[in-house]
């Protein structure tokens, strides 16, 4: 059995990210809760409050306290992974193993919540609804959440990378042709001078914007799907 060379990069990047997040949380813990937040604490405070409010609206007060840390880690990990290709490293989320694991964790939480609030009998009976013939469909439906969530993130990030590669090779071709026209037919591989003019805007779209939107979608889906399985009276309590 061979191990993909990507795996070592992913592990290294994950360790670096975890170290950065732990260091930040140490700083956050030490901060005076009554003083005015300064520097990097302000955006973090805003992020924590926003995520906590969204969780409270969707899964109720009690569950929100336990869900918020998980959602914040998802935010930090997926967003940094998506935009890390801007710094010349490969994105961990462009590997299906990583996104499948993230989606599997969310899926496991959804199943646990369903089991808790419906009981084993209700959970198993859910497979036979609305009519028993739907059993195979319901079994596929249970797993489709996990598959589609992981494939969405993976496909978007991978295809952003592929698009950027295509654009770079297209710019290389334009540079070669332009130099060839000026020098009169003699064209080897020249410096890719068209790419710095075109690429930055597309990087902003494919890496920053798509990375942000996909993170938002993954996190919102996690919260909303969990919230769907919690009965209203539990949310109110």
């Amino acid at each position, binding site marked *: 059995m061979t191990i993909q060379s990507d795996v070592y990069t992913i592990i290294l990047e994950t360790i670096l990210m975890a170290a950065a997040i732990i260091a930040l949380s140490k700083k956050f813990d030490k901060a005076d809760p009554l003083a005015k937040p300064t520097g990097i604490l302000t955006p973090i405070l805003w992020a924590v409050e926003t995520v906590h409010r*969204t969780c409270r*609206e*969707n899964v109720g007060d009690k569950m929100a306290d336990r869900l918020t840390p998980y959602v914040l880690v998802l935010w930090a990990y997926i967003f940094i992974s998506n935009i890390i290709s801007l710094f010349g490293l490969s994105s961990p989320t462009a590997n299906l193993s990583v996104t499948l694991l993230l989606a599997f964790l969310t899926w496991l939480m959804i199943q646990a919540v369903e089991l808790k609030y419906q009981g084993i009998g209700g959970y198993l009976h859910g497979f036979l609804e609305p009519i028993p013939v739907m059993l195979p469909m319901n079994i596929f439906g249970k797993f*489709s959440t996990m598959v*589609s969530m992981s*494939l*969405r993130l993976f*496909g*978007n990030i*991978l*295809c952003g990378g592929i698009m950027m590669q295509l654009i770079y090779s297209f710019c290389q071709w334009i540079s070669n042709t332009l130099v060839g026209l000026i020098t009169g037919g003699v064209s080897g591989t020249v410096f890719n001078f068209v790419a710095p003019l075109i690429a930055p805007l597309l990087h902003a779209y494919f890496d920053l914007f798509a990375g942000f939107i996909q993170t*938002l*979608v993954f996190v*919102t*889906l996690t*919260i*909303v799907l969990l919230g769907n399985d919690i009965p209203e009276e539990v949310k109110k309590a």
Partner: protein
Amino acid sequence: MDITRGLIAIGAGLAVCAGMMTGLGEGTCAAHACDAIGRNPEAESKIRSTMILGIALSETVAIYGLLVSILLMFVFN
């Protein structure tokens, strides 16, 4: 002459056409969400999460098409 590579490229191109109608559907969904927010601005957060859920579900089709074309290009090449 090897015709397989050309056929694979055509198949990959056809598979991505799954995204054609998905774009239309997602645009309609977002437009109606804008309408709803304009009519009832207090419900913005609820509308937003419902919209993202709907968009994500319909986007799955496009993602599957994308996956098929990626598989065609990199696995069967």
